[in-house]
């Protein structure tokens, strides 16, 4: 049995607002998302938003998501976070928007650790970057906390604030890490 296995890849052949992984197996120790994305919004760099689900139902839309981050955009550094939100905002990778060259896609890697353990809230660690060469290029390191001990069986990745769209060519792969 391989330690790292690809569970599913979603490649957008057309613009779409949402990428969703459902019926995630409970047989791995950790999950890892690798995302290459671009959004149809007049911005150089823009975040993805993430929601989780458990128990076979829809993703949680309550204000149960918290995230903290360190980031740099252009020559400016920042840090903070921690507000209760209806999705992980600053954890989701920062990707490219319409204000940079059409060939530019931002990328991110998100570890969701011990996701099937019902004794723990779900937590995550992520690093992402986008818009290299642009005025507002981003690099971000972030943490996420979902205040729910349910085993994660669904992940939804939406364009920024659930009000934008991923463009064709955006791709996300969900990996499972065995122990």
């Amino acid at each position, binding site marked *: 049995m391989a330690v790292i296995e690809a569970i599913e890849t979603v490649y957008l052949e057309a613009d779409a607002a949402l990428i969703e992984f459902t019926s995630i197996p409970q047989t791995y*120790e950790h999950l890892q998302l690798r995302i290459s994305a671009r959004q149809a919004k007049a911005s150089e760099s823009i975040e993805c938003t993430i929601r989780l689900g458990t128990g076979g139902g829809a993703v949680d839309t309550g204000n149960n998501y*918290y995230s903290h981050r360190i980031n740099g955009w252009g020559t400016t550094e920042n840090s903070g976070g921690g507000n209760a939100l209806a999705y992980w905002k600053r954890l989701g990778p920062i990707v490219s928007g319409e204000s940079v060259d059409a060939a530019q896609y931002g990328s991110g890697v998100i570890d969701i650790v011990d996701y099937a353990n019902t004794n723990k809230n779900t937590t995550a660690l992520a690093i992402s970057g986008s818009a290299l060469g642009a005025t507002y290029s981003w690099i971000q*390191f972030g943490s996420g906390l979902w205040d729910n001990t349910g085993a994660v069986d669904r992940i939804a990745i939406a364009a920024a604030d659930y009000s934008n769209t991923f463009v064709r060519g955006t791709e996300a792969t969900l990996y499972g890490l065995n122990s």
Partner: protein
Amino acid sequence: MAAFTVIDHTEVSSGGAAYWEETGIPTDGTYDHLMIKASIRSEVTGIYWDIIQMRFNGVSTSVYSDTLLYAQTYPPASSRNGARSDLTGAWWPADDATADTFGCLTVWIPNYANSSNYKSVIMSSTGAHATTSTDNWRIGVSAGLYAQTTAISSVEIKSGYAGNHAEFSTFTLYGIKGA
């Protein structure tokens, strides 16, 4: 041959554990690199986040140094620790943090078995907590140095506050083989 192999997986049982340690790590070329992925919570009371104390080969002399980039408020900060008796560049939730919340820790130790060079260590971690309050959370990355040429055959992770790892904390050590 698979690139990744699980060397050890440990879940802390009831009562907690003062440390996680793996000894007898092969140094004969079986693997080229080591990676640790952990989901950790500390039992130390009166604090929101604990700090790592990481040592190799049981060595506790002043042969460790690290450079840290972290945030627990705005702005982010960096610092350097030289000639220490352990590596200190990672953090995870402690007893005062949000209940049932465990931090994410990834440790990367490249070329760990060589006997010519000092060993470098890259860590990323999250002291997650549902809060916007200054200093009650900490996330960050670090670059560490173990200034010994001896191959690494054991690794130990303890609380910097001499507390226990909480029940359900998990540690997975992977060996990674090149081509």
